[in-house]
């Protein structure tokens, strides 16, 4: 800590030492004790902090109830989206979201495909027996 840094601190953070940067506070207070120029500056600028201290804000007692009253209900779709877009850091999310978007056509294709092609099911036992017999006949032809 030196004179210049103490002056910078007073100009930036004001005259209340409890608002000075924590890691420099003790050294700055020590420097102040032996620095008449900084002491004078502190006295001159103290008036701004005094003015700032007078500026309060009105309390809003109903605000808490208002916030709670206006909370939207969480829908299942919101939870699905939260699961799909997890709270990873921005970089991971940056890659995850395009992957998710790119996989949507694949999902759509699978859904569409499963609806378009149905497996043919033989409806009667008689037809099935005929088909098996035909196969065995062919196998016999190969044996000959």
């Amino acid at each position, binding site marked *: 800590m030196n004179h210049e840094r103490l002056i910078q601190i007073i100009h930036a*953070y004001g005259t209340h030492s409890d608002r000075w940067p924590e890691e420099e506070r003790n050294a700055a207070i020590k420097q102040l004790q032996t620095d008449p120029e900084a002491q004078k500056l502190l006295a001159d600028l103290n*008036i701004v902090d005094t003015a700032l201290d007078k500026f309060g804000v009105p309390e809003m007692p109903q605000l808490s109830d208002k*916030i709670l009253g206006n*909370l939207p209900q969480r829908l299942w779709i919101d939870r699905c989206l939260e699961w799909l877009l997890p709270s990873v850091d921005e970089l991971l999310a940056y890659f995850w979201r395009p992957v998710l978007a790119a996989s949507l056509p694949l999902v759509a294709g699978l859904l569409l495909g499963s609806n378009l092609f149905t497996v043919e099911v033989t409806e009667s036992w008689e037809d099935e027996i005929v088909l098996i017999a035909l196969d065995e006949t062919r196998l016999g032809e190969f044996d000959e």
Partner: protein
Amino acid sequence: MVSEAELVQQLSSGDENAYRILLDQHLASISSYVGRMMHSNADTQDIVQETFLRLWTQGARFNPETAKLTTWLHNIAHNLCVDHFRKHNRMVLEDVNDEPDEHSEPVSQLQNLESATHIGECLMQLPERQRSAIIMCHYQGMSNKDAAAILDISLDALESLMARGRRKLRKLLVSNL
């Protein structure tokens, strides 16, 4: 005692009680910040409500390993204030004429300053970033590192911003007497 990180995790899965606890813990601080930034009750209420709505809907995005919840909420509130100023064309541009006035009134006159409204009006005349930096460090008890992170600037830039803001505030307080 449930930690803040656990409460956020609970609210992410829809736990309204966890949300109430966090609301009680942070409402006064966020209202104080926004109230001093906006200097208007109606705007303050809207922005504070929106900030806490985002805690409810986007709480899962909060990462307790990278920031404190209060810093995260202040960040949201700050961005909402900036958006509001932009929408309403109330953004005060950086004043070129920041240097102290050589012919300013004697400092003793400032001692008669009583009106909080007057001080609030002077604060409102500061550029939004200067005002925000002063409010965060003077009223919110925020560390310089957290304030710099919210404003997305370096510590040197934050100190420069605050020094200019305080110099201009002093000038405004004197000239408006």
